[in-house]
């Protein structure tokens, strides 16, 4: 059989082997309820699920809609549910899911716009609400030079800066599924990324959003966010650390009400 152009020089495994992909379809102008549609896709040794979806789009059914961009685990746009697990489809090999069928759906806990495309406005609003940028009481002037940082100070927050906003943690979080008001793992981890940055002075402003019932305190440390995270951000650890520091602040305020903040 012909080697698919998309996969470059991909070698076909076991001459002509095929696998079934059951893909979630939702076309609001055509149907009121979503359905799963089966496609037969050739098995290539070095194909990931995203390659199989692109094969469908290019050769079998051009109406299938999904997001993707970089194909290398950097852009964070191809997150989907594959056999029930939240995963980046560019990082999940078809071969590891044989003999199939492989069930591909949109990320859970989000409204579906069409097929595999989810609506992420809720996340974007929450992300903006925690001010994920460096906040200074007073900006230094350009003449005063850059804000210097030691390697140890960088190491304090670097892990949390690796987030690519792929939303796998939201799809995996059962608390977010039950309580859409929950701020959620990635946003709290990104807030911590700035709180723990030696150049930042905005922890108090973020605390007003996060040290609340809808913020960190809704988390029950299920830990699935850290299991599915493709970048090892470990949002569960970020939330736990936030709980510890907020608790210390709470007791400080209780025992020393005059201490301010």
């Amino acid at each position: 059989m012909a080697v698919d152009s998309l996969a470059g020089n991909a070698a076909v495994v076991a001459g002509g082997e095929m696998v079934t992909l059951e893909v979630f379809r939702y076309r609001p102008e055509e149907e009121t309820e979503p359905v799963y549609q089966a496609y037969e896709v050739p098995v290539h040794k070095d194909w990931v699920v995203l390659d199989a979806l692109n094969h469908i789009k290019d050769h079998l059914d051009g109406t299938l809609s999904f997001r993707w961009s970089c194909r290398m685990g950097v852009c964070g746009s191809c997150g989907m549910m594959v056999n029930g697990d939240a995963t980046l489809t560019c990082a999940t090999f078809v071969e590891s899911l044989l003999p199939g069928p492989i069930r591909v759906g949109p990320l859970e806990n989000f409204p579906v716009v069409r097929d595999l495309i989810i609506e992420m406005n809720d996340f974007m609003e929450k992300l903006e609400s925690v001010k994920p940028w460096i906040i200074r009481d007073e900006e230094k002037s350009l003449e005063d030079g850059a804000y210097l940082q030691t390697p140890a100070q960088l190491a304090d927050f670097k892990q949390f800066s690796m987030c690519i906003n792929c939303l796998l943690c939201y799809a995996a979080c059962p608390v977010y599924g039950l309580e859409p008001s929950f701020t959620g793992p990635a946003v709290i981890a990104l807030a911590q990324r700035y709180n723990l940055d030696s150049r930042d002075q905005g922890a108090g402003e973020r605390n007003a959003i996060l040290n609340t019932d809808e913020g960190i305190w809704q988390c029950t440390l299920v830990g699935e966010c850290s299991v599915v995270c493709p970048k090892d951000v470990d949002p569960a650890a970020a939330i736990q650390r936030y709980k510890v520091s907020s608790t210390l602040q709470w007791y400080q305020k209780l025992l020393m009400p005059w201490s301010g903040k």
Partner: protein
Amino acid sequence: MKTTIEPFWWSLFGAGGTLAALFIPITLIINGLAIPLGWLDAPAYENVLQLARHPLARTYLFLLISLSFYHWAHRFRFTLYDGLQLKHLNLLIAVICYGGATVGTIAAGYTLINL
């Protein structure tokens, strides 16, 4: 800023979990296995009572029992809230769970004082 009481409950939960995980297995192995199976000689009742009456032992037992109760209360509250999805009974659940732990704490305190 909205104030929240959660840090208080969470700190009791955390402290209780840490204490229970560290010390309850030790207590269980000594009293539940080692002594009944004869690995250790059973101490005389009077000696154990005297040990338990020591102020440090009373404090230790009180904290271990009370904080374990609050650990249970917090976890059970979220088990009911999220697990059984009884969100609308939030206040009732909290009163029952933390109230139960408070009753247990008072009972433990009363028992230990009158030991």
